[in-house]
């Protein structure tokens, strides 16, 4: 019995505790990201934002959550019930499982797998299913059109993201996210070496998470709100949480690939004094600020312009950059020789 406890049950308890240590702060972060978004946009538009619930409106996210929780879940008569309920769960779960491979510090990672980058790429490419299932199962034209737009958009921008990731991989010589951060400790952050790719990556993750100015799937003026128009209460809340958790996940990926993950900007005293996970969080916040800034600043793209940007501008640029990176690395004999 004692042996069974030591060999099986205890590791499972530790694993669950570690998962909760990531998921609970993440959900809190999602709640307060909505608050931060409203406050930042309000400041940019010379308003005050939420001020009523709690001091400075700090309890607003809790009030919003409670409101969604006590509302009635409506399932449309013509809907395909199983798929309709499954879709928000898929979106939410996919937004969470990506965090398993994000390294918060040296050795501070839930699953330190060799193909971490590919895993993240796979998870982000699956995100489209939640939306397309929701659009189809709702049995509504607005929702279906939103889902079609969204899936075409996500599939298009994934290709640019994939090529950008390849440029980073050529420089780092590994698919392991911790190894990529360690390579940046030696070579300098990739935001300096791959600056154009960092910009394209930011644009692509805006499109990948269906955020402004690429939020055509939920284009209020032409589609009501797109794929989630038939959803209410907790099913809607799961979509909402999934979208924001995805934003944070994409910001974390950008931080790890380009901004040196848990590394301080300079390896000298006042910077090294701050622990690594805090640096990662600061960088994630920086990228999230850009997300919100773009929403407050830019008008929505037209759909054909969006497709043109993805296929005719970002894709050739990132492909050319892969060739350039490979050429430079080969010509100057800079091939990374990280031990496999």
């Amino acid at each position, binding site marked *: 019995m004692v042996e069974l406890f030591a060999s*099986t049950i205890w590791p499972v308890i530790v694993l669950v505790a570690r998962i909760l240590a990531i998921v609970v702060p993440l959900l809190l972060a999602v709640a307060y990201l909505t608050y931060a978004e409203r406050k930042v946009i309000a400041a940019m538009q010379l308003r005050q934002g939420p001020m009523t619930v709690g001091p400075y409106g700090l309890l607003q996210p809790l009030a919003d959550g409670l409101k969604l929780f006590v509302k009635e879940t409506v399932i449309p008569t013509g809907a*395909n019930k199983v*798929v309709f309920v499954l879709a928000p769960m898929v979106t939410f779960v996919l937004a969470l499982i990506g965090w398993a491979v994000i390294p918060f510090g040296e050795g501070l990672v839930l699953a330190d*797998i*060799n*193909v971490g980058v*590919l*895993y993240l*790429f*796979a998870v982000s*490419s*699956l995100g*489209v*299913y939640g939306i*397309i*299932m929701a659009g*189809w199962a709702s049995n509504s034209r607005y929702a*279906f059109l939103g889902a*079609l737009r969204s*899936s075409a958009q996500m*599939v298009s921008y*994934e290709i640019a993201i994939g090529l950008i990731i390849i440029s980073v991989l050529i420089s780092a010589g590994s*698919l392991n996210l911790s190894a990529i951060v360690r390579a940046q400790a030696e070579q300098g952050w990739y935001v300096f070496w791959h600056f154009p790719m960092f910009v394209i990556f930011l644009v692509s993750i805006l499109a990948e998470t269906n955020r402004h100015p690429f939020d055509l799937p939920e284009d209020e003026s032409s589609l009501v709100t797109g794929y989630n128009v038939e959803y209410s209460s907790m099913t809607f809340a799961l979509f909402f949480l999934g979208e924001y958790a995805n934003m944070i996940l994409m910001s974390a990926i950008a931080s790890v690939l380009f901004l040196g993950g848990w590394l301080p900007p300079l390896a000298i005293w006042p910077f090294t004094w701050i622990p690594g996970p805090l640096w990662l969080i600061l960088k994630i916040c920086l990228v999230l600020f850009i997300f919100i800034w773009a929403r407050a600043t830019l008008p929505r793209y037209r759909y*054909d312009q969006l497709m*043109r940007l993805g296929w005719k501008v970002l894709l050739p640029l990132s492909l050319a950059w892969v060739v350039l990176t490979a050429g430079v690395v080969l010509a100057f004999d800079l091939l990374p020789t990280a031990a*496999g």
Partner: protein
Amino acid sequence: MSAELFLFWLMGAVCVASAVMVISAKNPVHSVLFLILCFFNAAGLFVLIGAEFLAMVLVVVYVGAVAVLFMFVVMMLDINFVRLREGFIEYLPVGALVGLVLLAELVLVAGTWAFREPVATGVAAVEAVDNTRALGRLLYTEHFLVFQIAGVVLLVAIIGAIALTLRERVGVKRQDVARQVHRRREETLVLERVEPGKGV
């Protein structure tokens, strides 16, 4: 029963069951969803035998791209599956025959399976490194030519698909972003001082 064995039986069973559901589900969209479940469990089986690169590529390529296109087609076409099933009994003998031939071939191949000498030694040599690196080394050294030819075949397929669907329509007004951006003020705008009561 060890955890690995348990996972193998679980994922194998779900994989086979969902594969059966793919062909027996009434709703075509459900078929595609079961196909995705089947791919997932196959990826899980790949992870269990230590082929994590193949598992991830299976998910990225088949689930993330190919199945999305299936989904698109199935949703847009609105196929009436009840009518498709009408000839089921009629075609059953032919289908069973094809199935039997395929099964016989699979059994024959699996029964006489043997690795060619250089491949076997190559695998032994790369076991020390992780399997992404090992696959890369094998593809770019031993099987370089085949790999390149596969790429060319895919390129031909892409060009073929574009050539089949490309339509030249006359009378369509297209937006030329470069021209719009390079338009200057002098070309389009004339400033005139209009005196009151006279008009332009």
